């Protein structure tokens, strides 16, 4: 028989010590955090996670949930396959009570199938695809607005914000819907078209294009020859940059350009286009951190906490959305009689937070499908290289400008 070496023995003793001290600490409730932490989606996946992390630390400092500290167990969902694998691991190996996620819709659609079967509640804090909560799942809840809300906000902004700012009748504005032609663009544009019909908005062009296009000049020339006043664009980064550059080159000057989050929300897009050229571009998205605290109580404290922990300003509104969503669910977990799926469902359906009572300005009231019905994205605008909230008036930090770009 081989003798146990000294080093192994030391390790065993240390391990035993750790195990003992862990046992001595207060009981913990494990919660899953399923986000893309590596790969192409990692930047905003991590940004989303930071919101959950801050909310968890805040909760633990206040005594945790039901007297137990919350312990975050990370799952790295790089793609839908891995999302499924990590959801299985979280629910069956780590035995988490609930799972939070996910930022990306395709990852959420995949992971929630696993948790639903396992009977583990899933809290979606950031994915916007409508079908996620349209599948009749009983253990799935979502705090954030969906693609339909984005589309409605964009179309409504024409009548409520743009036309008054221009001092014209909304019906006189010629509107174009342009979008990249993958699922994201198709979905948002589909809802936009429907909403525009309902509201009697004059849509003169609907142009899908590939996000991999290397040239959008033909799209711009179409818009230019149709004398379009307002452009609604659903896009990623690359096509946003191309659109702004080539619109300038072709001398296309619409009265307003509005994006559906995506490429429009990212600082790098603005930097590639140039602050002067992006000036005045409107955008509909999750609440950004430059929002009036009157409509979003707690936002200033959130930004301060974020800066203290991570040393930078929030990189996007994703952390705020996740922070607010996580807090709503922690409260529901606390109010629930236990952490079983059925008790949680009862507790979550009772949640009743009025609009304007959270740090993102959102309220919370869940329907049977688990979707929050008291959320809508705000209207923002690029001004002087910053994305600032301009509408509704209560949330605005500054006045909306008309016109766009330096051209």
């Amino acid at each position: 028989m081989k003798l146990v070496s000294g080093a192994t023995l030391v390790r065993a003793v240390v391990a035993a010590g750790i195990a003992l001290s862990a046992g001595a600490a207060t009981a913990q409730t494990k919660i899953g955090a399923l986000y893309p932490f590596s790969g192409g989606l990692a930047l905003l996946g991590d940004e989303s996670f930071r919101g959950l992390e801050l909310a968890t630390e805040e909760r633990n400092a206040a005594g945790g949930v039901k007297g137990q500290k919350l312990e975050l167990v990370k799952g790295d969902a790089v793609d839908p396959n891995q999302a499924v694998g990590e959801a299985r691991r979280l629910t069956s190996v780590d035995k988490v009570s609930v799972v939070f996620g996910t930022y990306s819709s395709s990852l959420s659609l995949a992971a929630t199938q696993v948790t639903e079967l396992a009977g583990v509640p899933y809290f979606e804090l950031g994915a916007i695809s409508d079908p996620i909560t349209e599948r009749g799942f009983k253990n799935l809840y979502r705090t954030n607005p969906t693609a339909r809300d984005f589309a409605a906000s964009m179309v409504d902004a024409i009548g409520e914000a743009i036309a008054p700012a221009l001092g014209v009748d909304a019906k006189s504005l010629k509107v174009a819907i342009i979008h990249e032609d993958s699922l994201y663009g198709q979905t948002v544009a589909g809802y936009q078209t429907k909403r525009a019909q309902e509201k009697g908005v004059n849509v003169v062009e609907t142009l899908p294009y590939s996000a991999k296009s290397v040239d959008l000049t033909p799209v711009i020339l179409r818009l230019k020859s149709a004398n379009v006043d307002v452009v609604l664009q659903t896009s990623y980064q690359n096509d946003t940059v191309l659109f702004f550059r080539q619109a300038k080159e072709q001398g296309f000057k619409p009265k307003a350009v509005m994006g559906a989050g995506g490429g429009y929300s990212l600082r790098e897009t603005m930097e590639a286009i140039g602050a002067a050229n992006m000036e005045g571009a409107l955008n509909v998205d999750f609440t950004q951190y430059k929002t009036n605290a009157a409509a979003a109580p707690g936002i200033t404290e959130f930004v301060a906490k974020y800066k203290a922990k991570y040393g930078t300003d929030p990189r996007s509104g994703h952390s705020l959305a996740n922070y607010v969503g996580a807090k709503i669910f922690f409260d529901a977990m606390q109010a629930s009689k236990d952490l079983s799926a059925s008790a949680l469902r009862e507790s979550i359906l009772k949640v009743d937070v009025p609009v304007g009572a959270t740090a993102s300005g959102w309220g919370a009231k869940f329907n049977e499908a688990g979707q929050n019905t008291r959320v809508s994205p705000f209207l923002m605008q690029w001004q002087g290289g910053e994305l600032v909230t301009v509408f509704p008036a209560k949330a605005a930090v500054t006045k909306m400008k008309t016109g766009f770009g330096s051209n």
Partner: protein
Amino acid sequence: MDILIQLIINGIMLGSMYAIISVGLTLIFGVVRVVNFAHGELLMIGMYAVYLLCTKLGLHPYVAAIPVVGLLFLTGVLIQRFIIQPLLDADEHIQIFATVGLSTALINLALMVFGADLYSVSSPDIRTSLKIGTYNVLVGQVVMFAAAIVLVIGLHAFMHRTALGRAIRATAQNRNAALLMGVRVNQIYVISFGLGAACVGLASALVSPLFPTTPTVGTYFVLTAFVVVVLGGMRSMYGAFWGAMIIGLVDSLSAYYIAPDLKEVVYFAIFILILIFKPTGLFGFGRGTE
């Protein structure tokens, strides 16, 4: 009418961008006979190199072309010597998978190093609009157009007038015969791949002021580049040039007159029709000459 002319100008400019990216592939695909799926990633490497040289050292993108062409030549040589050459006698599919693997590895490497965000070279002088009457064209596009013509004529002359060029053509036509005639075939392959990659280096310096750099930027161009090369008849520089012009014009016109999301359908339909009626490509040597 105004719009038609603007679209044609635009199509020609787009065509020169495709041409300058595709001539390199003509050398690699046409001569070395490697279906190089990592061609787009060579462009990506070049564009990041240009970005770094411009932002860190303050070079003008066109000055950055010189070191980047060198860097890409070296990259091409290394890829051929250490990845393709060991597989030269293996099945063609193995080479294809090797380049697909290389492509994936390079994209993910770029994701690790630079992240998924886009970077853009700031170059207002290159993106200045030149107004010709009511028509718009960018300085950078005109430079690209001129560079494409010079490069194509230069490479054509090199392939036909110099001993090395002849050796490259001989190798492309018949590897074994060239070997028997005393051509150092492996060396020729290494040089051809290097030259092909160097052309991409030039392309990246010209493209990056006009187009933002991302890890997947190569995938935007690579499929079109293959179409251009096959359309041009695999080994002809002039063929690649005209192939690129056709694709550029079809791209621009069909996006306006048909629909922006259907332009690929239109040019692939034309591509298929040309292959059906002229399987060797428009300027082809094709399979019959092997």
